[in-house]
């Protein structure tokens, strides 16, 4: 018996009024695969994430998660089915501490639901889980800092921490390293590689070094359409891609 794809996108389209932003995107992502989406600014990468995660309703087409249709479901239900996403612009709970932010992300997997009869502060498992995540994301020494006071790179780490806190099977990361320095990027990539071990990852990235290191396969999105999908080697060798997007000068030296 073969497993269904972790994520199966079929003929997905999205228009805002007359503007077609996503056009007939079809893509299968196998369980455990690390898949990168690249493409120029405004290509529709974030919109694609919004469609998959339930924030936007598709104009046409469907998305299935582990073989179950999820298009049309509200985001919280999709999240409970095991798909979690991060945001390109940090989207955290600014009035809470780092620890409380992550603890919010943990609640759901603790089976706590909307409960109003248990004391969260006394929940040892929730504590342990929260600090495991904080530790993994290099945030445990900032646990009690208000999230709004975090330096930018740490906010990005917190964004990832909240995303992985709920133990999702499928993780969508939207430009997790955007705006980071080289050393911060290296640390973030390390964190992403570890946190997504054995999970399915869909990642939007601009940093070619990151992508060619991390991804099993790459899809190139241009003007809302998938131009090509393949292994890093195939994408690097694809003349159409080089012309449309990468441009010879955009490729890092050692990869060109």
């Amino acid at each position: 018996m073969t497993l269904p794809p972790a994520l199966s996108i079929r003929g997905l389209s999205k228009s805002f009024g007359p503007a077609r932003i996503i056009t007939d995107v079809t893509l299968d992502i196998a369980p455990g695969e690390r898949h990168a989406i690249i493409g120029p600014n405004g290509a529709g990468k974030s919109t694609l994430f919004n469609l998959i995660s339930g924030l936007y309703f598709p104009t046409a087409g469907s998305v299935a998660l582990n073989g179950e249709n999820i298009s049309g479901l509200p985001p919280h239900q999709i999240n409970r089915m095991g798909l979690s996403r991060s945001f390109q612009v940090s989207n955290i709970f600014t009035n809470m501490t780092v620890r409380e932010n992550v603890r919010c992300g943990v609640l759901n997997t603790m089976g706590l639901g909307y409960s109003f009869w248990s004391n969260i502060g006394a929940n040892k498992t929730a504590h342990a889980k929260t600090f495991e995540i904080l530790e993994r994301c290099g945030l445990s020494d900032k646990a009690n800092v208000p999230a709004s006071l975090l330096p930018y790179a740490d906010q990005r780490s917190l964004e990832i921490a909240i995303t992985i806190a709920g133990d999702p099977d499928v993780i969508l990361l939207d430009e997790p390293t955007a705006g980071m320095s080289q050393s911060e990027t290296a640390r973030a990539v390390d964190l992403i590689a570890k946190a997504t071990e054995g999970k399915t990852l869909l990642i939007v990235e601009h940093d070619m070094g990151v992508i060619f290191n991390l991804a099993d396969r790459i899809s190139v999105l241009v003007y809302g359409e998938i131009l090509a999908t393949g292994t890093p080697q195939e994408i690097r060798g694809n003349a159409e891609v080089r012309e449309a997007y990468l441009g010879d000068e955009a490729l890092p030296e050692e990869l060109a």
Partner: protein
Amino acid sequence: MSTQDTFDYSAHVPSNAEKFRQRTLPLLIFAAILVAIPLTGPSRTMYTLMHQMGINIVLAMSYNMLLGRAGLLSFGHAVYFGFGGYFAMHVMNWIADGSGIWGGFPVFLLPVLGFGAGALAGAVIGWPSCRRAGTTFAMISLGVAELVASGAFMFDGFFGGEQGISGDRMNGPQMFGLTLGPISQVYWFIAFWTIVGVAGMYAFTRTPLGKLSEATRDNPQRVQFIGYNPQRVRYMVFIFAGGFAGLAGAMSAVNYEIFTPDAFSLGPSGFILIMAYVGGITYFVGPIFGAILLTYMQSMMSDFTDAWLLYLGVLFISIVMFAPRGLAGIVFGFGAGLRGPRPRAFLITWLTHLAGIALMLIGLIVLVEIAVRWSNGYGEAFAPFGLPLAQSNPLSWLLVLLSALAGGALTRRAARMREAQA
């Protein structure tokens, strides 16, 4: 699980001693104060005032579950107070009849039923209104309040028409040996339920739902992506807020033995909002400060001056503009400043500021009191401390002008001093 066993996170979470000091102890002190108050032999007036304070503390805090903790601005919180109170009044009369199951119900436990009635009203009204936060929610709450208030004057069977419904609390089985007859016995009823209400609402903030309420206030979009429906979070919080308002309603029903449809009108709803906001909505205990001060102002100042609502308005506007963290923010800020690196400089600045505000306040009071008497035209003169300040007396106007100017100068000076210290 291996990392969980080895990593010691105890350094990063509050210790049990800290938890006791910061969480349990203040509540115990609050309870101890309430228990100690009767030892001072309060007068009847004092009792009456304190009972109203207890009711308003629970009510303002229940409102803050919405405004402060869930980011929901409601203009109709008196509705849930009213339903809780009316239901308690009806049950009180059923108890007096002694018929059926109600004959054996103690009046002392009416707040439990008030909670139920308020929560039920919240569940019905919240269903359509909690879909959206922000302006939509605020407008719906206003509409619902108007609707219920006008309904309360129409359906006399339940609401008792303009004279409302009255009853007698001295019926049914007693609890703790309290007949609830003398006012000093009602005190224990009010104190008990004030503590239960405050402790209950505090416990709520510690639950997953309480935390989700804050998360939904801060960022409803992200809440969806950690697996929760913000509408459902709001709805559930709304039901609880209605419940605690209903509890306060039943406290009021037992205390006054009467409820009238006026309880539902926009005035009380606005007063609840002002109590919570003046007290400080970002602090859990903020509304306690607001409830105590405003209840005091309401019952004491209305005896002294016709213009007390005007002073209330000035207080509210000043807090909104100059101290958005409310009285609690001022008090805790004062404490933090004294424990800060330069307590002396801080204290001097603070006292300068206080003097400035006091002077401006004197100017305002003299102006208002003269104006009120002038406009009433009874020929009565404002004479504080035996000093006659008629409108024809140039000294009056000089006093207004000078204290306003001096006060303004002092506050500006305090602001500059604060800037220099920062």
